[in-house]
């Protein structure tokens, strides 16, 4: 395989693995974030505090824990997930779920209660008022998505320990950068770094545009 096509493949793989991880994290984290943001209950502060602390989980530490869990000798070994793309997706999703939850709930808490009160006094029922709160939280949800995807695609620890940097299977941008650097291929590592940075910038710009569209559309 030529170098160019391999770089393209690695880039696409990084995008789809981290994209899927962010989507999975959104699927799990958004509802939890919404619940944490919308409903007051005993121990909510403790729960949000834990998730906020987990936001800064070192990737190698999470990688090690998940490696021990997914390893054949570990409790989830029967799933045969270690060193597969799926393990990477799961690992990165777990890594970014706290980000998803924290930013979402934080946004909703800061939007609520003024927007909820505004909607209610203008005649909205509880459900429509909740919908307004969510609609106003869109910016935070987009931020959460962007932060999640960016952290997923730029992390190394989980990818190395769960994916193993297997060529053609679990090799992604960050693991390639690490590998090429130890191999002394500094120029190649630098090129991959540029690709990673460009991707993150482009993705976030696109997301900002998408946010505007969605916001406009939500108010149609």
């Amino acid at each position, binding site marked *: 395989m030529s170098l160019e096509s391999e770089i393209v493949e690695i880039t696409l793989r990084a995008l789809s693995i981290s994209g899927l991880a962010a989507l999975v994290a959104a699927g799990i984290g958004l509802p939890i974030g919404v619940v944490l943001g919308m409903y007051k209950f005993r121990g909510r502060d403790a729960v949000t505090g834990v998730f906020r602390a987990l936001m800064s989980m070192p990737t190698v530490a999470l990688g090690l824990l998940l490696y021990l869990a997914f390893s054949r000798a570990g409790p989830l070994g029967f799933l045969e997930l270690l060193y597969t793309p799926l393990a990477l997706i799961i690992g990165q999703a777990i890594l970014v779920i706290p980000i998803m939850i924290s930013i979402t709930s934080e946004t909703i808490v800061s939007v609520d209660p003024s927007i909820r009160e505004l909607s*209610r006094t203008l*005649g909205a029922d509880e459900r429509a008022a909740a919908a307004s709160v969510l*609609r106003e939280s869109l910016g935070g949800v987009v931020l959460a998505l962007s932060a999640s995807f960016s952290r997923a695609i730029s992390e190394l620890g989980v990818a190395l320990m769960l994916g193993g940097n297997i060529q053609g299977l679990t090799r992604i941008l960050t693991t390639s950068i690490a590998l090429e650097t130890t191999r002394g291929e500094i120029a190649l590592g630098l090129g991959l770094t540029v690709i990673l940075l460009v991707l993150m910038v482009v993705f976030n710009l696109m997301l900002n545009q998408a946010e505007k569209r969605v916001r406009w559309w939500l108010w149609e």
Partner: protein
Amino acid sequence: MGVIELRDVTVDFDSTKALDRINIRAEPGEMLSLIGPNGAGKTTALRVMAGLLEPTKGEIFYNNERLSGADLIKLRKRSTLVFQKPAVFSTSVFKNVAYGLRVRDVSESEIEKRVKDALKQVELYTLKERFARNLSGGEQRRLCLAMGIVTEPEILYLDEPTAYLDSESTQIVEAVLKELNKEKRTTIVISTHNIMQAENLTRRAILIQNGTVQRTGLTSEILRDQLETLVFDDTTRNIFSGSAEFTNGLHSGMRLASIKLNDDVSIDAITDRDGKVTVRIPPEDIVVSLGSVLSSARNTLKGRVSDISLEDAMALLTVDVGVNLVAQITRSSLENLRVALDDEVDVTFKASSVRVY
């Protein structure tokens, strides 16, 4: 034209009592003010009346009909609260105003017409396509008012409608409220710690302190009896007690009195009262000049400038004329005056500017 009544309403927040067995009744088509210091419970009372907060104890009557917790949505459909801190949706000005109509399933053509009317009333129609969050603070407050009136509520509640508002927006808001009350006979309840606003807008007032109703009555009477205790913030200036004495003079056909503020200072005012009075001289009615100017105003006093403070486009000059008088002038006239601390100046104001309680 709605009638709202709170009977023995108590609201507890955690362990503190925000409201303690209060009774409030707003009559149909009246303008009522809740006055009291910050934290007295005015906002909480408004939220209960507007159906946003279920009281811990007590009863709510709307148009003489008792409401239970589940009926609060009905209350909200027919009355609206305009918050002190402007809350707007992240969309255009137009869509913000349309929100209250959309949740009521009003037809699009009707929405178009009514939003337009409401925006014109608060003088925001030219900004209708702007992103609401990009409006200035004063514009956002007016937008909130438009959002409230577009649904044509039977009762409109306003929490501190003009606190920290620039004078242009204040005038617009007060004009809209008066017009609404006059034309549509909308019942309007405002909370304010600005007693001048209460005096200016509402005939009746309810004084709330520490979560309880201290007094209910005519605004002017409450002010007369308790003015000095009702000054809740430093935006209310130039309030003095003194004794009035009839001078046998007439001013534009009205009775002129001399009011002695202390041994050195007396001012002329139009009043038919004698004896102990409280007066207020609005800072914006006082003219400051270097040396005397030719004026028909009855009161001209000499003094030294003891303080100059700047607020937005305005400047406040404190002049010691025997009492400390605060004059509000524009910044450009301050620059033209070239006045500095300790300068000797003349202050001039009309007898008719002096409010006597």
